[in-house]
Structures are given as structure tokens and as C-alpha cells.
């Protein structure tokens, strides 16, 4: 088979798996698991074959136009360069791991078939986005991911948190998607094509008339999808979905789609210095703010969610300094270790019976209950904190190196201000990242107090996946030397300055947090806290759903807990209160958008009820009165009927006679 055929099969197989799963889910439940896992595995294998054949060389391009669609043609096009090939492997790998993990995590779930089918559909859509060479086709995959995210976040729709979170995720991402769509049209209007290759060729020859406008419009969609400030608020709430969904969608793949999109169209963005500065500021605010918020969260998955936002900030930062190789490198490394973190967090939640770090810090020997999760999560946290030699170190250093490169003015067409912004915020975030990673590790695994509840051995399907994902977290750094061949050819090895700086601040962050923890951990015993959902026999999904649902009643807030033994509270000081609620951004949104919209809806409802309906009622009243009058005639008295009949007959006869004799 040609590379093109293989590449077409990559998104197609999970799609067929999803369709078959949805169709057969009720009639043949036994097929659900094979139908979920096998297409993902096959897609992963095919993506690997495509990547080997492409080999980082000339990009594979293929296109076919199904039907003429007006002024700007829409084509089914493939565009596979090194970025696409590697990202597709990442998507396939994470999707496969998630599908395998889900067979254990949701093994008793009654809606497993639809869940697995939606995950497959989502995988298919993401692969479509990755391989697509046409922006309209890319948009199709983009929106399918959005709707899949909506359904999967709302998987536990029995809980109000999940319902609210799914609607919020949908609306916020749509808020970004509307300008995104307009931006795509503007781009096509300027360049005369939706094909990425043509657009890039056009941009290279300076054919873009409104680069800043287009870049900012596209940026809105990217911010929504990749959870960048100010449209990031949906991502922490989306943790109300099952853990595998968080791992797949909200850590490794979907949120990476925005970054990937900018990486593909980077020349469009670098054409506008203003857009790059905006991108850099956005990345900086996102990075620093989310890291602070992560330090204050109590729900283990929300810590990871804010961490995801921060790492995505690194990627957009790398793009802001014009280095897409570094961005995609970090995307790949982050995808692997963040998926691992989420999946391990799912194991921990199942074992501990709670998602609250405060409650976990009051459990003894949790790490002995889940040794696999303990070791793999340690690896992933080290990678997250960018400690050498784990993969996160290399990818993050490549970002910081690119920022330094731009800051000192070596990068053409990138303003130095963007470089400085990214570099400084990146270093600050490195410090904070190490701090919250340390806090998470200490609170989760080094608690004191009562024995952790025994939930038995975790399923092999879940543990094996953790080790599979631990491999790239450990060793992906080795690829640093090879990756430039696949990417733009720019060097990705860490420079000495940033490596020393970055590792140094990370170590400082970790050690300070450890000190704070030593200081506060004694208090943990004095303040009992925590609620545990104990279901030794149930699967992880049920435990997690109950834990999410019980967090607010137990701790007073869905995000934080009043725990004086929390080192994050000591470190953040007065800032903790604001960081715990995401710096009140939700409240600002409520004041700025939600309440005006609700007021407008009330007004419209009033107008509809009182004004429009009056006309409708008036239109109905006249026929009703006529009908009532006619009804009164139906007395049932035959003589009345016959009288009317004969009177009419007489009138007609007389009229006929008069008409007939009028001429005589």
C-alpha cells in the first residue's frame, strides 16, 4: 500500500470502530472491548508505518476534490510532514493506552460501549486534524473533537458537576471557535485557498493582506481549544469526566490541537509581530497563573489540569518565539508524561477512595498499595518538573533555549520582547512547576495517619499501561538529537545557560516545598479531614464519580479544601485564597457574560410571553369565538336543522327563479 492509503486508513479505522461500536453496542456487548481497542492499536501501528516511510523527509501531499464548493475549493487533502507523523504516533499511543486502561477502569460501567465508541470517534477526529492538509477538513475534525469532549466530560451526567462542566467546556470552546471560523475565512479570502501548502506558499511570497487580524482571530480559537488564558476556565472543570478521558482529551491530544494548529501555520503568525507579542503575553499569563493555581488545588486531577494549562503555555510560548520544533517537541514529551500522570492519578483515586489531596495526606502507606502508580508517577512528576535526564527536561529546555535565542535577538522576524517575556515567565513557571509537583508527590504518597483503605490489586490493564507510558517519559530525551531531522532542522539540545538556570530554579522550588511540607505536616494529625468513598469491589469509574460528587459537600468547595497542613497554603500566603478559585476568572465571566445573557434572556422571555404571544392569542381568539358560535348551533334538535335546511332551500329557489326570469 502506498503511504497515502495508509495515512487515510489511520483516521478511518477508529472512525469505523466507533460506528461499529455504537451500532453493535446494545446487541453484542461482547464486541465492545475488541472494537474499542483494536482500531486504536491498528491506527497506532499504521501511524508508525507512515512515520517510518515519511522519515522526516519530503512532506507527503495528496488531495482530491469531491465537488466544487464555490469560490474557494474545499479538498480532501493530506499533508504529512515530520510534525504530523510524530504527533499522529503520540495520538495513537495515548489513545491505545487510554482504551486499554478504560477496559479496567470502567469495567462495570453500564455506558461503557458508548464511552468507548466516543473515545474512538475522538481519536479519529484528532488524527484527521493531524493529517489534514485542508483547513476546512481540519475544522471538521476540530469540531468533532469538541462535541466528543462535551459528551465525554458529561459521562457521569448523574452528577450536577459533570453536567455543568460539559456545558461549560462546550460553550467556552465555541466562544473561541466562532472567531476561529471567521479567521479561517479571512485567511482563505486573502490567500485564495484552504490548502495549507498553498497558504504557506502564499504567505512566504508576502500575499497576506491582514496578517494581524487573521492571526488574532485564529488565536481565539486556539486559546479556546488549547485552554489558554483567558479561555482556559473550562479545563479544570472538565476534570469531572472520567480519568481516562482527562488523560486523552484534556492532557495529551485535544488541547494540543491548538498548539499543533499554530505550529502548522506558524508563518501566518510570524508575519505579524503584534500577534507574536500577544501570543507571548498570553503564554506568560497562562503559565504563571496556572502554576500558582495548581499549587492551591486540592483535587489531584485539578492540580494536573492546571499543570496541563501551564505546559500548554510553554508550547504557545515556544511558538511565540517562532520555534515550532521546540513546541512540538514539548507537545510530544508532555503528551506522554501527562497522560501517564492522569492515568496514575486514576489508579490513586481508586485506591484511596478520594480525589482530595488533603484526605490522601492523612493516609499512611498509600504508596505501598499502588506501587506501580507510585513509581511511574514519580517518573512523570520528575519529567514534569524538568529534572534531567527525564524527557520533560529536554523539551522544556528546548523551549527556554528558543526563548533565549529570540530574547537576545538572534531570531529573525520575532520581536525580542516576546523572547524576554517567554524566558522570564518560563523560568518562574519552572520554579512553580517543581513546587506543585513536589507538593502533589508529598501529599499523595507520604501521608501520615490511618491506614489507606484496601481496594485490592489494580487491574493489569491499568498498571501495564502506566509502565508503557513511563518509557517515553524516561527516555524520550534521547530523541533530542534525532528530532531536528523531522522538524525544521533547528537545534533542540539544551544550552548551558538555560539548562543551569532552569534546573536550578526547579530544584529550588522542590526544596522549598519540601521544607514547607516538613513544617506543616505535623499539623495534619491535629486537623482530621477527609471523606472516603469505599467500594472495594467497584471499578475506578464509580469511585471517582462519587469522589467528585462528594468533594463539595465534604470540603465546601469543588476545588480546594480548608487544610492547614497544606504546604501550598504556606507558600502562597494570602494569594492562596485567590489561586484556589483560579483567580476569580469564573466570577468575572459570570459578571461580564453570564449575567447579561441571562438578563437578556429574561427580557426576551418577557417580550415573547407578553408581546408576541398576545398577537398569537389574538389570532386564535377570533376563530375560537366563531367556533363557539357554530358549536351553539349544534343543538341536536333535528327540527332546527330541517328548518335551516328548508329556509335555505326556499331562499335558493326564489333566487334561482329571480335570476332565471330576470332576462324574460
Amino acid at each position, binding site marked *: 500500500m502506498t503511504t497515502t492509503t495508509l495515512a487515510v486508513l489511520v483516521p478511518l479505522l477508529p472512525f469505523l470502530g466507533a460506528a461499529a461500536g455504537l451500532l453493535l453496542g446494545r446487541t453484542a456487548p461482547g464486541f465492545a472491548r475488541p472494537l474499542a481497542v483494536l482500531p486504536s492499536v491498528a491506527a497506532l501501528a499504521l501511524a508508525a508505518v507512515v512515520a517510518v516511510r515519511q522519515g522526516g523527509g519530503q512532506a507527503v501531499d495528496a488531495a482530491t476534490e469531491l465537488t466544487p464548493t464555490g469560490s474557494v475549493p474545499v479538498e480532501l487533502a493530506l499533508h504529512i510532514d515530520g510534525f504530523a507523523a510524530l504527533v499522529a504516533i503520540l495520538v495513537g499511543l495515548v489513545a491505545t493506552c487510554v482504551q486499554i486502561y478504560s477496559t479496567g477502569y470502567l469495567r462495570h460501567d453500564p455506558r461503557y460501549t458508548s464511552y468507548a465508541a466516543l473515545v474512538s470517534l475522538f481519536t479519529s477526529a484528532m488524527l484527521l486534524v493531524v493529517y489534514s492538509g485542508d483547513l476546512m477538513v481540519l475544522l471538521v475534525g476540530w469540531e468533532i473533537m469538541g462535541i466528543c469532549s462535551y459528551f465525554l466530560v458529561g459521562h457521569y451526567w448523574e452528577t450536577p458537576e459533570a453536567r455543568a462542566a460539559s456545558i461549560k467546556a462546550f460553550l467556552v470552546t465555541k466562544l473561541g471557535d466562532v472567531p476561529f471560523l471567521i479567521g479561517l475565512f479571512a485567511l482563505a479570502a486573502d490567500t485564495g485557498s484552504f490548502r495549507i501548502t498553498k497558504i504557506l506558499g502564499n504567505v512566504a511570497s508576502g500575499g497576506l493582506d491582514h496578517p494581524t487580524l487573521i492571526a488574532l482571530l485564529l488565536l481565539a480559537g486556539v486559546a479556546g481549544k488549547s485552554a489558554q488564558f483567558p479561555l482556559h476556565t473550562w479545563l479544570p472543570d472538565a476534570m469531572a469526566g472520567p480519568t481516562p478521558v482527562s488523560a486523552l482529551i484534556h492532557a495529551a491530544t485535544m488541547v494540543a490541537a491548538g498548539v499543533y494548529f499554530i505550529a502548522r501555520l506558524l508563518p501566518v503568525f510570524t508575519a505579524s509581530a503584534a500577534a507574536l507579542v500577544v501570543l507571548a503575553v498570553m503564554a506568560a499569563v497562562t503559565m504563571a497563573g496556572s502554576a500558582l493555581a495548581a499549587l492551591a488545588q486540592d483535587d489531584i486531577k485539578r492540580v494536573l489540569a492546571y499543570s496541563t494549562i501551564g505546559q500548554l503555555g510553554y508550547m504557545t510560548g515556544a511558538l511565540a518565539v517562532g520555534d515550532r520544533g521546540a513546541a512540538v517537541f514539548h507537545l510530544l514529551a508532555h503528551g506522554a508524561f501527562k497522560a501517564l500522570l492522569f492515568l496514575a492519578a486514576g489508579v490513586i483515586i481508586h485506591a484511596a477512595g478520594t480525589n482530595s489531596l488533603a484526605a490522601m495526606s492523612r493516609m499512611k502507606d498509600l504508596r505501598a498499595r499502588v506501587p506501580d502508580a507510585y513509581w511511574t508517577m514519580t517518573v512523570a512528576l520528575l519529567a514534569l518538573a524538568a529534572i534531567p535526564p527525564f524527557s520533560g527536561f529536554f523539551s522544556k529546555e528546548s523551549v527556554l533555549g528558543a526563548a533565549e535565542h529570540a530574547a537576545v535577538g538572534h531570531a529573525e522576524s520575532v520581536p525580542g520582547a516576546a523572547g524576554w517575556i517567554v524566558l522570564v515567565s518560563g523560568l518562574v513557571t519552572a520554579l512553580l512547576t517543581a513546587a506543585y509537583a513536589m507538593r502533589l508527590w508529598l501529599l499523595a504518597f507520604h501521608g501520615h495517619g490511618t491506614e489507606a483503605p484496601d481496594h485490592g490489586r489494580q487491574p493489569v490493564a491499568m498498571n501495564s499501561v502506566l509502565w508503557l507510558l513511563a518509557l517515553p517519559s524516561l527516555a524520550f530525551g534521547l530523541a533530542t538529537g534525532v528530532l531536528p531531522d523531522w522538524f525544521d532542522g533547528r537545534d533542540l539540545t539544551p544550552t548551558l545557560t538555560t539548562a543551569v538556570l532552569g534546573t536550578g530554579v526547579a530544584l529550588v522550588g522542590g526544596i522549598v516545598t519540601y521544607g514547607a511540607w516538613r513544617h506543616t505536616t505535623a499539623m495534619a494529625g491535629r486537623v482530621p479531614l477527609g471523606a472516603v468513598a469505599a467500594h472495594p469491589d467497584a471499578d475506578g469509574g464509580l469511585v471517582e464519580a462519587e469522589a467528585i460528587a462528594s468533594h463539595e459537600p465534604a470540603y465546601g468547595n469543588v476545588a480546594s479544601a480548608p487544610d492547614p497542613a497544606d504546604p501550598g497554603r504556606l507558600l502562597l500566603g494570602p494569594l492562596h485564597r485567590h489561586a484556589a478559585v483560579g483567580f476569580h476568572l469564573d466570577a468575572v465571566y459570570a459578571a461580564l457574560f453570564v449575567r447579561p445573557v441571562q438578563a437578556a434572556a429574561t427580557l426576551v422571555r418577557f417580550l415573547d410571553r407578553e408581546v408576541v404571544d398576545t398577537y398569537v392569542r389574538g389570532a386564535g381568539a377570533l376563530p375560537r369565538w366563531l367556533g363557539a358560535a357554530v*358549536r*351553539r348551533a*349544534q*343543538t*341536536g*334538535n333535528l*327540527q332546527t336543522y330541517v*328548518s335551516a335546511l328548508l329556509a335555505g332551500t326556499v331562499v335558493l329557489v326564489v333566487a334561482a327563479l329571480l335570476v332565471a326570469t330576470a332576462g324574460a
Partner: protein
Amino acid sequence: MHLAYPAVLSALLFATGLYGVLARRNAILVLMSVELMLNAVNLNLVAFDVWLSKTARDTLHSGQALTLFTIAIAAAEIGIGLAIVLAVHRNRGTADIDRLRDTAEPGNDDPDDDSDDDSDGSGSTRSEPAEKAEATA
């Protein structure tokens, strides 16, 4: 004889019968009025038959034949009609036409009719199932 005499008499008798059909309450009186109307027609038929048999040398005497047929049919009609009236009277306890209002629009609130219905309400409500049984028998 002037042809207008029988013709006018027939018209007047017809109108009288018409009034009876429309105004009488008892079903048997309505049947009597129907007989009046039929006889008015008969008178017309006979008068015109006599006129045509003389004037147009008509030997078919269709008017008289039709008159005989009408009389026979009227006899049959009165027999069947009376049987129906008796069956209704047996079931409903009344032979008053304006109380047989099963086809009335439900919820029709004519005060006069309501008082009428109430006066024999027991009879009419009790007869409902019986009437249905008869319909299915």
C-alpha cells in the same frame, strides 16, 4: 275548472304540512304532517294528470299511477315510522323529537334545553346502555 285551484290548494297544504313537521313536538304528529305533505303532492299529480289526459290526449295516466304508488309508499312509511317511534318511546320514555338530542355538541349550554334534558334526565341516562345493546344486538 281553473288549474290554479288544485295547484294553489296543493301548495297551501304542502306548506301546512311543512309547518307541522317543523313545529310539532310529538313524533306521531310529525308523521301526520308528513302525510299532509304527501297528499298535497298527490293532489297535484291527480290534477295535472286529468288536465293532460284531456288537453294532450294522454293515455298513459302516469299521474294517477304515481299517486297510487305514493299512497302505497306512504302506507309503508307510516308503518315503519310508527315502529321506530314506538321503539324510541320504549327506550327513551318519550316520543318528543326535541328531546332526542344525542347528536348535540357536548357542553352546549342552552338553558332551555338543559332544563328539558334534566326533566327526563333519569330516563335518558338510564337508556344509554340499553340503546347500545340494541344497536349491537
